[in-house]
């Protein structure tokens, strides 16, 4: 019983972190049809920005609880400043081109951003572990978890519901869905597609940066943090179906639970577990769990 609960909790906390990042990735693909290799770099940027913002908050003698606000602000700044700049100054010139070309462009962006973050923040690590202690600890049997991990689960739920609600219950969301289905038709109906692209890209980057910002207290922020997250995020969106929000949620849950089960039961298969799940899903649902099969346009 204890082991089952532990697997469930560990799987859930890992999945929530993964969901926040993967949701941004799948949203950008859904709207802009860009497989954003640089998504991990925005995640890293969020982590670095959070380190700086939390440091400034401490210097201004803000109460420790406000470090959460500082982390949110860091993600907002990345989304408001860096994302539109990237989309307007770079990506829009490649819309309509082969998807492979966009993969190469975002890969180049990933390499550039790696060095830019190093130029700005240097190679030394940043520690912002104070927010990690804000929510105390939760004990169950032999286990003790940090309350912050459960706060991340709550944050993931709030974000998932908010994105779903905006997309399905608001005018902006319906316009975005129209662009997802067909940018051409939406444009002919008077939708400013480029604005939708910029908005969706910024939201996607906000989610990446938010994931990075809320991970910063658990790690030392340093060069290379962008790499690991992007690979496993791709596994999540491929399992769930590229562009599907429900898919990202279910994909993150599957990956989180599979990994947790493997670590507790057969640690040697930890890495393998994620990709075996992905392979099995792709065998039966090549488009992913929540991607509708699309008719080929002639």
């Amino acid at each position, binding site marked *: 019983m204890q082991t089952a609960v532990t697997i469930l909790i*560990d799987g859930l906390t890992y999945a929530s972190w993964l969901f926040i990042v993967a949701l941004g990735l799948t949203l950008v693909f859904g709207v802009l049809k860009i497989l954003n290799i640089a998504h991990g770099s925005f995640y890293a940027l969020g982590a670095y920005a959070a380190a700086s913002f939390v440091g400034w908050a401490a210097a201004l003698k803000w109460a420790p609880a406000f470090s959460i606000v500082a982390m949110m602000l860091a993600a907002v700044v990345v989304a408001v400043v860096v994302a539109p700049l990237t989309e307007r100054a770079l990506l829009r010139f490649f819309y309509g081109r082969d998807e492979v070309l966009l993969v190469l462009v975002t890969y180049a962006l990933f390499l550039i951003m790696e060095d830019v973050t190093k130029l700005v923040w240097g190679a030394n*690590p940043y520690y912002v572990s104070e927010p990690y202690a804000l929510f105390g600890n939760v004990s169950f049997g032999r286990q003790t*978890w940090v309350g912050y991990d459960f706060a991340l689960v709550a944050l993931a739920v709030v974000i998932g519901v908010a994105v779903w609600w905006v997309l399905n219950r608001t005018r902006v969301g319906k316009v975005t869905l129209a662009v997802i289905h067909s940018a051409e038709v939406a444009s002919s109906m008077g939708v400013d597609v480029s604005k939708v692209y910029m908005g969706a890209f910024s939201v996607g980057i906000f989610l990446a940066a938010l994931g990075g910002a809320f991970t910063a207290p658990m790690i*030392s922020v*340093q060069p290379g943090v962008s790499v690991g997250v992007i690979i496993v995020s791709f596994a999540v969106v491929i399992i769930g179906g590229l562009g599907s929000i429900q898919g990202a949620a279910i994909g993150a849950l599957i990956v989180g639970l599979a990994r947790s089960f493997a670590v507790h039961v057969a640690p040697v298969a*930890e890495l393998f577990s994620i990709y075996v799940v992905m392979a099995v899903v792709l065998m039966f649902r090549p488009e992913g769990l929540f991607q509708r099969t699309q008719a080929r346009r002639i």
Partner: protein
Amino acid sequence: MTKRTSAGAAAQRSALALAALLAAGGASAQETFKVGIVSFLSGQAAESFGIPAVNGAKALVDAFNKGAAPAPYNKAGFGGMKLEAVYVDENGGATKQVQELKNLYDREKVDAVVGYVGSGDCLAVAPAAEEMKKFLLLYDCGTPRIFEDGKYEYVFRTAAHATMDNVALVRYLKAKNVKAETFNMINQDYAWGQDSKKDFTWSMEKLYPGAKPGEDQLPKFGAGQYGTEISALMAKPADVTHSSLWGGDLQAFVLQAAPRGLFQRTQVVFSAADHVLPGLGEKMPNGVILGARGAYGLMSPKSALNDWWWDLYSKAYGVYPVQAPYRMVQALLGLKLAAEKAMAANGGKKPTHEQLAAALKDLEWESPAGRIRMALGNGHQAVQDTAIGRTRYDAAKKMVVLDDIVRFPADCVNPPPTMKSEDWIKAGFPGAKGCP
């Protein structure tokens, strides 16, 4: 007038010819010894290993060229030749490293390459250098397999391999009477982590015959998130928890495990953790037993050479040197002595790759961390002393200090030249000498 002019021109020509002859006969101040230095300048290993090591190299190359290093390293440059370093990023995987290594030899025309932190990279580049018959000095990577499974003429490693780290850890536990009836492990899933856990397990079998291994976690390199692994380690708590995690992975593990109380439930032992102490500060729990893969940093021995090196590095970078720059400096000191030895045997001329290799084979020299002896791998693999200590945060100094330091002579924790590490440990460390 005309006569005097032509006599002057003749004298000038003679002087030029003499200079040319001198240059041809021995190293001149203008001649350079070009060394390619490969380490992580980006990616996950840059902060803890690559950049501190390269910083150490830069400080030392500068000191060499000024002739500012203490004797016997006080000859300017390498035997009068200016030392020129070309820095290359190790990030990008083993295949890329093989190509970069070939570029260094073929395009940059380097006289030697010093490099490689990653065990996988070392395993890949060593055969490539050997095939090209070019001098390669591995300065950091830990896997024992390089010289135990392979035989090389042109490849050397000037730091001890990982067997020493884990044998010393277990010997420390034994010397300090640490209870170890059960032990858990968490190591990265690649050559370094796999080799480390094997060496630790075999050493435990010999020195703690009744100890039972429990959890054997193998997260991938760069995982960053260890919540699930920490739960697994806490679910079946053991007397001792061993790890060879390093860099950002180690920092993340400590930051995530400490608030959950793992360090209170088990005696954590890290085989290569000194480099995270300056950064983590008070976030590193007290009482953790750790090694530095040598007698480095806070565990380095007192000597004039170490004092000079400590001051050089600390003044240049505002932080004390940890294991990576120490290993870089011991590599460059050895290379300098080998180059000067080879030059002396070569009429003062720059040595070839063959001559350099012959000069470094079986060489011994003093480093800030103690004496380095190329005693294993047919004179190609170094042994050195090491030390293990226990963490304590010193609030007055605002830094982590190490208490209960125990020093282990090289012959106590390294296998003899005639045995492979695995066989030596499994045979119960035959021939081990001077153990405390």
